[in-house]
């Protein structure tokens, strides 16, 4: 039973490392966090999960999500070992 659950778990969930830039570091209170997502989650579901855990993120209005150093669209899929980066706007000069 335990093994069944484990295999079930391994099959359906993945742990993604999310790197934080700019004010996202303050919001996460860390330079990176671990996030558990269902396998092949979309960027939109990642965003939803993040904003549930970190409501301040939503208040930014917009921030860039890059997957493997490419601009990610809401409908793009995220896979195990993908590198996700949250890059909020920066104002200073």
């Amino acid at each position, binding site marked *: 039973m335990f093994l069944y659950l484990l295999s079930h778990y391994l099959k359906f969930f993945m742990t993604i490392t999310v790197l934080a*830039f*700019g*004010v996202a570091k*303050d919001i996460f209170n860390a330079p990176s966090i671990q996030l558990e997502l269902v396998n092949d989650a979309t960027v939109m579901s990642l965003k939803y999960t993040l904003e549930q855990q970190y409501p*301040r993120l939503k*208040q*930014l*209005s*917009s*921030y*860039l999500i*890059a997957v493997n*150093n*490419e*601009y990610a669209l809401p409908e793009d899929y995220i896979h195990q070992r993908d590198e996700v*980066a949250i*890059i*909020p*706007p*920066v*104002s*200073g*000069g």
Partner: protein
Amino acid sequence: MTNDWARYHCQIALPGFGEAAQQRLQQASVLIVGMGGLGCPTALYLTSAGVGTIGIADFDTVSEGNLHRQVLYGPDDTGSNKAAVACRKLRQQNPAVEFVPYEQRLTAANVFDIIAKYDVVVDCTDNFETRYLLNDAAVISGKPLVYGAIYQFEGQVALWNVAHQSGGRTPNYRDLYPKVNAAQIPNCTQGGVIPTLAGIIGCLQANEVLKYITQTGESLAGKLLVFDAQTLQSRVVKIGTLTKTNITTLLVAAEEVPDIDQTELKKRIQGDDVQLIDVRTEEERLAHHIGGKHVPLSELENNLHEVDPNKTNVFYCASGKRSAEAVKIASRALPDSKAVSLKGGLNEWLDENG
């Protein structure tokens, strides 16, 4: 060319550069908007490299708090207009360059006329309002825009809005950030910035300008460079080859201003930590007021000593519009003071109590 060769031969010697690239630089005109932490190094290197015409736009004056990262200025320059000081110093560095200072604030009313004269625009501004204004104006005018921004130890650089030979343009700032809630993003005065980051990002901006004009190297068109001065990690994020935006008119993002509603103000006004400042005209003031000091909005910049650094300064006007402007002016000039705008202004105040 002999004279120029003596000054520029160490870059003319570069592979893929040559005299043709140097001539392109000398024929080019570049507008730098913002002569602060990013503008100073950008201007220093575009000047030394021999760009023909450099426009410098900054309405602000040098303040002591700028000096830790704005390397063109010293204590003797505090109080002077940045564009004027920068042009004077840069002229000594390279008298062959033509410098054009713009000492007024960039607004929707003047931005098109100013950028029309330049081949490339560089965004060295320090606030979202001007960034969006400049981005949208550059896109509408079809000008390439070299973007830079810094905060604490992190910076961003990109080259926006480059025309493809096949038509269409590369992404711009609104592809990355369609809109922003400025109140949620701390600026350098709040969160600090390491001066060397300003230098690195400003030099990277000048580098993008040189590459664009001389047509050498791989540009940051369609990409965003993110750099961390603490870990020295840098990454280039691919944005795409074509913009998905369709900017046809200036859509200046309203800067969110901290405000207070009358219910809360009435509670707090009992204590002595609140100072009211009326920013309406003399006429309006004479007709009716709710107390406090009187500094018409047009005179606020010259009367900033009226802002009490130890109190919450509540600016008010008729509708809340001018008082919001007053809060912006006070917060920019005195970042450590507390300034809020009376929401709805006296119009609403009267409605309820009148």
